């Protein structure tokens, strides 16, 4: 049972590598961990449109949060 599982693991790792490559090509800014979470969500059937808007929102939120923090810390 080990070899098919490990073969599977290899295939999974390869796929993730490929996806990371594509993600870097497209400049999505996703790191490996986020990408893997996204992949898992998509595989479970989540709507990618919604997911992408969530990610964008989260980014914006974190950006503005950081900006405000910097601002307040400086101010």
């Amino acid at each position, binding site marked *: 049972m080990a070899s098919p599982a490990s073969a599977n693991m290899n295939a999974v790792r390869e796929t993730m590598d490929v996806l990371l490559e*594509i993600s870097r090509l*497209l400049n999505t800014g*996703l790191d490996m961990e986020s990408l893997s979470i996204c992949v898992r*969500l998509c595989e479970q*059937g989540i*709507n990618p449109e919604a997911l992408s808007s969530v*990610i964008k929102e*989260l980014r914006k939120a974190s950006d503005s949060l950081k900006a405000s923090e910097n601002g307040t810390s400086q101010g």
Partner: protein
Amino acid sequence: MAALDQKSPNVLLQNLCCKITGKSEADVAHQFQYAVRVIGSNYAPTIERDEFLVSEKIKKELLKQRREADAALFSELHRKLQTQGVLKHRWSILYLLLSLCEDPRKPSNRVCSYGALLTQARDVHSTPFYYARPQSLPLSYPERSATAHNSSMATSGISSMGVFSINGPGPTPPSLLTGPGPQAVGESMRGSRLAWTLPVSSSPSGAAAAPRPPSGPSSSPAPKLPQRQRRDEDGTEIGEAALVRDILYVFQGIDGKFIKMCSPENCYKIDSKVPLCKSLRDTSSRLAELGWLHNKIRKYTDSHSLDRAFGLVGQSFCAALHQELKEYYRLLSVLHAQLQVEDDQGVNMSVDSSLTLRRLLVWTYDPKVRLKTLAALVDYCQDLHLTIETCVQFFVASDPTVKTDRLWHDKYSLRKSMIPAFITMDQARKVLLIGKSINFLHQVCHDRTPPGKIMPASKSTDSPKDASVLFTDLEGAFQSKIDAAYFETSKYLLDVLNKNYQLLEHLQAMRRYVLLGQGDFIRHLMDLLKPELARAATTLYQHNLTGILETAVRATNAQFDSPEILKRLDVRLLEVSPGDTGWDVFSLDYHVEGPIATVFTRECMSHYLRVFNFLWRAKRMEYILTDIWKGQMCNAKLLKSMPELSGVLHQCHVLASEMVHFIHQMQYYITFEVLECSWDELWNKVQQAQDLDHIIAAHDVFLDSIISRCLLDVNNRPLLNQLRAVFDQIIEFQNAQDTLYRSALEELQLRIQFEDKKRQREEMGEWGVTAEQEAEENRRVQEFKDTIPKMCSQLRLLTHFYQGIVQEFLRLLMSDESLQFLSFRLDFNEHYKARDPRLRPSLGATRGRRSANI
């Protein structure tokens, strides 16, 4: 992905939030809630799930950025992905990556907002739930006032949210964003709101299938629209911009700030307290009508899309309505996007707005017309949930336990109680027939021709326009549709049956073989079988008989029949009772299977069997009598030299001719008056039949009439017994005659021998015959002559017996009106009547039945 642990989407999302924002779990609670909401509301993707398209888009994007090498690299990677085959939803992740794509040349904001615009437009579009309130959820709240335009993203992006049960992890604060934020944010969080379950199943079907009960407008308090800083600055006069925004919400069925649903009157009313000039008010109310139409249709589809009892076409109607609604939402999302763009660009809307109420009026004219039609349809549907297939499903009860061979008869029967009043029984029957035919074709004939080919007319109910035609002219159109469908289906079914399964050929074959239509074959078969069947029944072997059958087939005209028919012909041995000879148990069988078994059901086949037995027996009698006659002819000459036998022989002849006459008449009656006439009727009906039910009915009538007129039904049991008795007598007679002839011929033989010997000896010069021999001979002759009276009396007994039976038979026949023909034929010269006074019709004869046999 099998290797990764299956975390639930909730957990995954939370992880994602943590990762992206870089905060701990507790801090991201709000973002998480937001994420949950968005994902939950945009359950179904609106784009095509086409991997090829997405990859093409990616390539185009890369080419736009002048990165051809990268585009080629992407193709390579994509191909690798496809060969690895680990991912199930490649298109999904590819699309995600594409939408997160950022052109390094442009500033990130631009790209973001464009993408966000699209997403929002689609968000609005793809969440057609009928409920409370647009919730605006700005994520970062402390400095809302400074970055007002940020909220624009949040507002319309999540403009529709549902009311659901709590199931997600994490806290669900009632006022998620009542931070110390400015009033703009605080006021926005009114209204009911709950977290909802994330869809964990990976079956993203259309939004209509999402099993979430919509909440009525009454259950939610009327919350206020999230305020915009700008609107607050408008002062007392409500600007057009605000109205436009309101209207856009109303279009979706959500109460706006000023325009609310007034439940008692079931219409949208503009808050009279709001200062609005009249023209604007009028325009607004006209636009609000669109929202009202939308609500109506929405309510209908929501309440019925899940109703399983609604039937296939009802559901397809709902689906069609949903399509239309989607179009409508698309328009709304475009309008919304327009609004957003203007917001983003900070244009002062009250002056330069490209989205005035007038414009809205113009743009929404067309959708309004469509929605009106839909609402009218919905109205009709509230009353009459019917089209042909729905009828079938409503009041045709299907019995799933019935096997395919009984399919036609048992599986579908009308559930009378559920037939709506305006459909006549005839229509209902026709609908039943259509349903049965289609199903029959599918299951039994394995005919996969889609009914669309058969009934091009009736399948048009998918398009709402045709459906409206159907419903507006209900009686006439419905009837004509039913009729058309009925004719088409039945004709098609009959064609299939006749061409593929040769129903008519088999009908004829039955006639020829089982009903003894093929004379030469039957005669030959009987010839061949005679020695076999004379044996006791227990000694018969089926394969012997089958072999004989085949010989007979090959030797006669039957060999020219199609092999399909011949292979179904078979011998069947009935159950053996003690003392049976082969004649009693032999019968022919014709195998039926497949769709023709619907016409030739098992009962039919057993009827055929009985008729066959009867006919076979009658034929055998004929055969016997022919033999007797032959014998008589041959032997008459031979036995002329024995004058003492002449009396006996005469008796034999007389009896034989009586019997011959009787059987002859019976045969004639059976063949011509029963079989031929009924067959003719059947054939005509079959040729003219419009559907399978007709054929089956005609066939049943045929069999019934044959059975009753062949005296095989229950009423005629005594008659049949009499007839059997007659047949038995004939057999007896045959035996007696055989014995007679045998002994006579033997005697003759001996005498001839004696004479020969005498002559021989005389020729040789001896005494012809010695005295002892002579005496011996004389003694023998005397013995023989002594037996003659015995034979005579035997024969007389036989005759008497026979005649008694025939009389009784005729008497019984007299009392039955339907068999008058037979009795007339049998007694045409009133020979019997002369003998038996009882046979003369008496006025008050109440003996026997006067009932008709049929």
